[in-house]
């Protein structure tokens, strides 16, 4: 898409679109930097075969790392909300499901495995997979906080049966978050079709071509994105018919 300047032989073609602010990228990478030690030290306490590591001074060190990382991990979204409240609320709104998301999730195995993109409905600034990742991270962040704080400060005060339930919910949240993290890591770092996602989280911008292909509702607007998608489907059907 180009803009021609009136009265001049000069045109400007849109190349890079800002997707994340510096604070958002810093928050994301600090989230990664705290999530990994949290998951690793949490596993030492979670898996029975690693229990020997949780004893003695090593165990104390693991617990200290877990708690320091947990404080930073817990504060990051609050800092984001304080400094960029409009962006924070915009992100929450953009993570909410849209009606095309079911179609996207149904079509995504053929896209990720075979590169077939015809059936992929147009997506907004976040696609359904990114929304799923975001929602799991938000929900588990809340569960980690609600269960982790009483587990830290409530030992000996909270009734043992309540404490056990806190541990169960903390562990379930950890399983969900780690599974989502591994999928997210693979798609962002290793999948050949998703290179733009990592570029945008490193540099804050996304190319116009990538946005048009992967985030058409955000790029073209909902109406035009649907028209383009319908045309693409008709073209694919005609090719298939011949």
């Amino acid at each position: 898409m180009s803009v021609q300047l009136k009265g001049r032989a000069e045109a400007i073609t849109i190349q890079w679109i800002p997707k994340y602010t510096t604070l958002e990228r810093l928050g994301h990478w600090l989230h990664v930097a705290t999530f990994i030690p949290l998951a690793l030290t949490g596993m030492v306490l979670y898996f029975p075969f690693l229990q020997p590591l949780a004893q003695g001074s090593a165990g104390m060190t693991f617990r200290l790392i877990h708690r320091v990382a947990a404080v930073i991990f817990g504060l990051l979204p609050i800092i984001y909300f304080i400094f960029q409240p409009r962006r924070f609320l915009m992100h929450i709104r953009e993570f909410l499901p849209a009606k095309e998301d079911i179609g996207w999730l149904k079509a995504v195995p053929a896209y990720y495995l075979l590169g077939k993109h015809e059936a992929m409905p147009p997506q907004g600034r976040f696609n359904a997979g990114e929304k799923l990742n975001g929602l799991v991270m938000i929900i588990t962040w809340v569960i980690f906080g609600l269960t982790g704080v009483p587990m830290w400060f409530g030992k000996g005060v909270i009734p043992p049966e309540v404490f056990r339930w806190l541990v169960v919910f903390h562990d379930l949240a950890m399983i969900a978050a780690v599974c989502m993290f591994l999928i997210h890591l693979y798609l962002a770092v290793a999948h050949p079709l998703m290179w733009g996602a990592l570029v945008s989280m490193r540099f804050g911008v996304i190319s116009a071509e990538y946005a048009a292909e992967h985030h058409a509702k955000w790029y073209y607007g909902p109406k035009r994105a649907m028209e383009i998608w319908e045309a693409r489907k008709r073209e694919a059907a005609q090719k298939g018919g011949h």
Partner: protein
Amino acid sequence: MAKILVVDDDPDFVNLTRRILQQKGYEVITASNGQQALAVMRKEKPDLVLLDIMMSYVLEGLDVSREMAEDAELKNIPVIMVTVLTGARTQVEKISGEYVTADEWINKPIDPDDLLNRIEKALSKK
């Protein structure tokens, strides 16, 4: 003094620009999305439009510009694109593919003096 329509979904940018323009004596009207901008233009007939490109979607400002070009009452209003998008400038006599026209392209963050100079230049061409 000229009437300028500022179209942007960022209220901080709108307030800042309003202050810069009002200090120079311009009358300022505002809109926060494309549809609202077109409605205000048809009602208020501004002398110039400062148009953000990326609002509720990336190309919204370009769609506004395209609709202006198709409307006999709006097509002669000068448009200055004010944007965070990064574009590649090329020298061309006639561009191919999809395009819209504008009088100027300014990247954010804006330099107030540069903005005022370009507004004066665009208004003088009317």
